[in-house]
């Protein structure tokens, strides 16, 4: 019964064109020799060269990358624990509140999350800067990791864990030698998702930032508010390329892992 009609093909084609053409336009314009949008001055890499001469921009790139690595790592640890609590924690009291707290950041408007975290930091009298953004990002993105890992935990055969424990393997060791390798691909893709989300965030970082912690999105935003700038097209193209490579790598990891899946019962005998 799977038969794609003309209508199906056209809706797919239009939908994908809508998703990808704007990005293509951005990439092409980043190589435009002319400073004016809409005037094509031939191919050029001058805007990429201009980026290298902009120490503020490079500084922001470094801040954003460090921030994303730190908060993605924290979020992955917390998010994985959260997934374990939800799937393997049994029916503990206030579980509804916990799952509510887990999913809420996913849809909560960013202006609310940002404002409330800032007010917390002010109330606690914490100096704002790199670390406050890291905490804010960790809070925002851990739910994405939880969802990814949770799906994986629900998806695999629990008999493996029970077999290990029936054979006298202590729970912590069972977790490290059986469960963790099985959910590792989900943890890896959760980390990458968390990394890109942190790299991307403008609103929450704007609220929780302090002196000396101008992240890349904050810097890009302050420049593009005034209009289109070719240097920004160039930095955006670099980010898009980076993300595309990361995502393709992530999907390859997942694919390899699911192929290895079939070999798992054998491994469990060892």
């Amino acid at each position, binding site marked *: *019964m*799977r*038969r794609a*009609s003309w*209508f199906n*093909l056209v*809706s*797919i084609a239009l*939908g994908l064109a*809508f*998703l990808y053409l*704007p990005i293509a336009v*951005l990439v092409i314009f980043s190589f435009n020799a002319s400073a004016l*949008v*809409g005037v094509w001055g031939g191919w050029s890499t001058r805007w990429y060269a201009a980026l290298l001469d902009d120490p503020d921009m490079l500084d922001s790139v470094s801040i954003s990358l460090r921030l994303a690595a730190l908060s993605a790592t924290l979020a992955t640890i*917390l998010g994985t624990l*959260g997934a*374990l*609590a939800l799937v393997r*924690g049994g029916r503990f009291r206030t579980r509804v509140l*916990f*799952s*509510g707290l887990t*999913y809420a*950041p*996913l*849809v*909560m*408007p960013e*202006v*609310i*999350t940002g*404002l409330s*975290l800032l*007010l*917390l930091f002010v*109330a606690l009298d914490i100096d704002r800067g790199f670390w406050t953004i890291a905490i*804010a990002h960790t809070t925002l993105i*851990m739910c994405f990791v939880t969802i990814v890992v*949770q799906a994986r935990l*629900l998806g695999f055969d629990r008999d493996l*864990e*029970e077999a290990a*424990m029936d*054979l006298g393997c202590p*729970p912590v060791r*069972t977790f490290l030698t059986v469960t963790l390798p099985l959910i590792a691909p989900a943890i890896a893709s959760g980390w990458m998702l968390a990394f*890109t989300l942190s790299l*991307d965030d*403008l609103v929450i970082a*704007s609220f929780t930032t302090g002196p000396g912690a101008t992240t890349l*999105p904050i810097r*890009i*935003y302050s420049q593009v508010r005034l209009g*289109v700038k070719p240097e920004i*097209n160039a930095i955006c193209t670099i*980010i*898009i390329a980076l993300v*595309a490579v990361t*995502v393709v790598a992530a999907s390859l990891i997942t694919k390899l892992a699911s192929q290895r899946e079939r070999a798992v019962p054998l491994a469990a005998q060892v």
Partner: protein
Amino acid sequence: MGPCFRKDDEGRGGVTTTTHHSSKPAAFGRRLVIAIPYLWLAVFFLVPFLIVLKISLSQTAIAQPPYTPLLDLSGGLAALKDFLAALSFDNYALLISDPIYLLSYLRSLSIAIVSTALLLIIGFPLAYGMVRASRAAQAILFMLVVLPFWTSFLIRIYAWKNILEREGPLNQILVVLGIVSEPPVWLSTDSAIYIGIVYTYLPFMVLPIYATLEKLDQTLLEAAADLGCPRWKTFWLVTLPLALPGVLAGSLLCFIPIVGEFVIPDLLGGSENLMIGQTLWVEFFGNRDWPAASAVAVVLLFLLTAPIVIYQHVQARELEGGR
């Protein structure tokens, strides 16, 4: 670490006794696994809302930070009394008395409703088309729909700024094709906001719908066809009702954040009518009126409570129920 427990309970009758020795540390471990993320979310997600609520009830002060101080519990009962006496509803009165706020809320809600409808109209056929493609093609299409979601949101909005410029590619194409004689103004209009929103949120609408359509039992459609039901009627009577959970999840996943959207209207829209996210931003960063900004946030959260609760219900069932 739950399985260890279950074994213990089941094994009480006889066979399995192996994990008995580790049950105490395991219980501790299990509690720790729950407690760590729980505590983090409580401290950095739940408590901050209470602070927002508190500050929305305090007076604006010309100081640093610009509001009257928080409750100092060391002062005992007298301090609590002072605290309660100092609470003021001035900020909420302001929200009602100045039409700017009401208009912002209404504008946000109407933009969110219209864009969710547009997203459904565009997203459903896309998801439907994806499901009907071959297995191999589906994997690629899925990847293609997800990929932009990974790419920076700010960058994708900014990309539209390039396209929608007066001398930009869109107008050039429209003029060349002879659709318009004069290049129309796109930036700073509501059309630009809708384009930006639909563009950004499309994957959020497509993926949940795709997930439910993908699980749909094909034999039901075959049965309908065998019984002589026309295709459009099968779609209307079988496919659509079964796809409803996905439609609901996708719509809420889009609707809720759109109401509070800031970046899209700020970069693509005009500066006259603000959405509520922009109003909050201006109140906070522009006017430095933290209590008023907090009151705006509290009312916004209140408006979104019902959709958020419904969404969580759908989400939890989607993740935990189907197995």
